[in-house]
């Protein structure tokens, strides 16, 4: 035996995740390309301005100084995160459909990897692996921007002290990590729904993923008044930030785990996600090539 029985599930999970990354290289290429492009954008537009803004920040209050100077770092982070969520959604929609389309499901099923391991490995891609990769990519991009801005400031014969003292070095990665966790938890039901559609639908996965939820919401809104539905969609699709963070009296945005964890919407969403993942495992058990 190559591995002991206790380590075997870990080993199967590890190789299942690795094979997903072999197949879907866009999972890391897309965020990486967006990071590089937005970094170049930051150099082109913001870094030359760093000299001017450093001169100007002296006139602002400390909070504004920080937000002004950290703007390019946030911009890169937001662009890469949006990319990763989109990539994660398209990945999920294809994850259990592609293997049936190209008949490779028969190869995967000929090996001693259970449907639960396969589905959990696939679910872990948008919920665990992608956020971790995004954290590394964004942090690396931000470090590059720090060094380039510092070089620009020094080249202009100015002191980098203001820049370095105003940038929230500790807060940025912690806040980013927390935001990635919030996003993963908040979008879990969305990813799980897409996985479910990819194992359930024979064709037209995109239509099945989008139309039934919208139709259901349209029906609800016809009954109750559309503002509820709009609020629900807004909250679920772009509300991760406001559910996880609080803006305090001094307009500083802070991570607020207790606000997040006390939100019943989070737990209902996670419960739905768990149910959908369970259903996906059960369905894959009976799945054959298309």
């Amino acid at each position, binding site marked *: 035996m190559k591995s002991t029985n206790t380590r*075997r599930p870990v080993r199967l999970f590890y190789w299942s995740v690795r094979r997903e990354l072999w197949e879907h290289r866009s999972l890391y290429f897309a965020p990486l390309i967006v990071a590089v492009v937005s970094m170049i954008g930051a150099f082109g537009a913001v870094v030359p301005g760093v000299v001017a803004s450093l001169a100007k920040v002296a006139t602002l209050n400390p909070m504004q100084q920080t937000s002004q100077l950290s703007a390019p770092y946030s911009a890169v982070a937001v662009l890469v995160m949006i990319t990763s969520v989109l990539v994660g959604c398209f990945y999920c929609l294809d994850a259990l459909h592609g293997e049936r389309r190209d008949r490779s499901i028969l190869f995967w099923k*000929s*090996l001693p990897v259970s449907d639960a391991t396969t589905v959990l490995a696939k679910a872990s891609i948008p919920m665990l692996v992608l956020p971790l990769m995004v954290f590394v990519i964004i942090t690396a991009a931000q470090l590059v921007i720090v060094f380039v801005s510092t070089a620009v400031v020094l080249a202009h014969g100015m002191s980098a002290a203001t820049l370095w003292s105003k940038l929230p070095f500790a807060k940025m990665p912690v806040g980013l990590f927390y935001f990635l966790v919030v996003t993963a938890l908040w979008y879990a039901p969305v990813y799980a729904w897409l996985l479910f559609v990819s194992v359930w639908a024979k064709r037209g996965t995109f239509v099945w993923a989008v139309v039934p939820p919208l139709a259901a919401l349209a029906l609800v809104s016809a009954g109750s008044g559309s503002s509820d539905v709009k609020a629900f969609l807004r909250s679920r699709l772009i509300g991760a930030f406001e559910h996880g963070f609080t803006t305090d009296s001094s307009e500083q945005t802070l991570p607020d785990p207790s606000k997040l964890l006390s939100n019943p919407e989070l737990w209902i969403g996670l419960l739905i996600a768990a149910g959908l993942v369970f259903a996906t495992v059960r369905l894959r058990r009976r799945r054959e090539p298309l």
Partner: protein
Amino acid sequence: MSFTSPDTAPDAAPIIKARGLTKVFDKHIAVNGIDLSIAPGRIVGIVGPNGAGKTTALNSILGLTPYQGELSVLGRDPWTERDELMRDVCFIADVAVLPRWMRVSQALDYVDGVHPRFNRAQAEGFLAKTTIKRSSKVAELSKGMVMQLHLALVMAIDAKLLVLDEPTLGLDILFQKQFYESLIHDYYDKERTILIATHHIDEVQHVLTDVIFVDGGKIVLSCSTTDFESHFFELLVRPDDLAAARELGPIHERHTFGRSVFLYRDADPEALATLGDVRTPSLSDVFVAVVTNQPSTIKGAA
């Protein structure tokens, strides 16, 4: 290529045991109450026309589909205990199922990673006999090479049961021959059981120890190939003895190139020899006779 069947003890615990195995799709009965007992160390051919229920029966055995009736594979219920079963069972469902994006090296890494009974050195050894490059993607390989790769992966797995469903479909004759030769010479060791479903009967005839004919979801004939040779005879009837030959009750008649060829089941070979030349029929001729199940005359290009 010749192959003699190892006669395993009949009381050895069967690898596969089925009683009343049935599978119904909507209104169509794909498998209709099959009874089966396959001993270890056999190479069994499941032969039947398209739609006979071969693949459905194999899918039940492999735990890919739920079924009715009793079925036990290596002492396990393949539907409820599939995860455990797949450590001892391997299958090639189709030559074209290796994922096209995968590199040869990745296929080796992956199977090595997930399969506790995979012997990587052995798989590398099989691949060394081919022209397949480690860095190639499956999509870049010819159909024959994909088969070689898949066979190299599967043969390096120390499984107790190997199931092959139409493994050589779409391959040219050279690859077909090579496939079965590798299987018999490099893999089969008299303890493993191999189950091959195909409708290319003559291609597998020489490697089988047992043959099962299925048609319409039922088993129409099941016997070992040695029994087959002692039960079925083909007689090239001398023109003057046609009436006498017909008296002996052939199960099938055909006429080719001016000769009449009669097929007999359980006839006395010495009596037949007085009426013409007796020989062992091909599986495909017996298959046609058993499936049509009535003496009929097929006019050849005389």
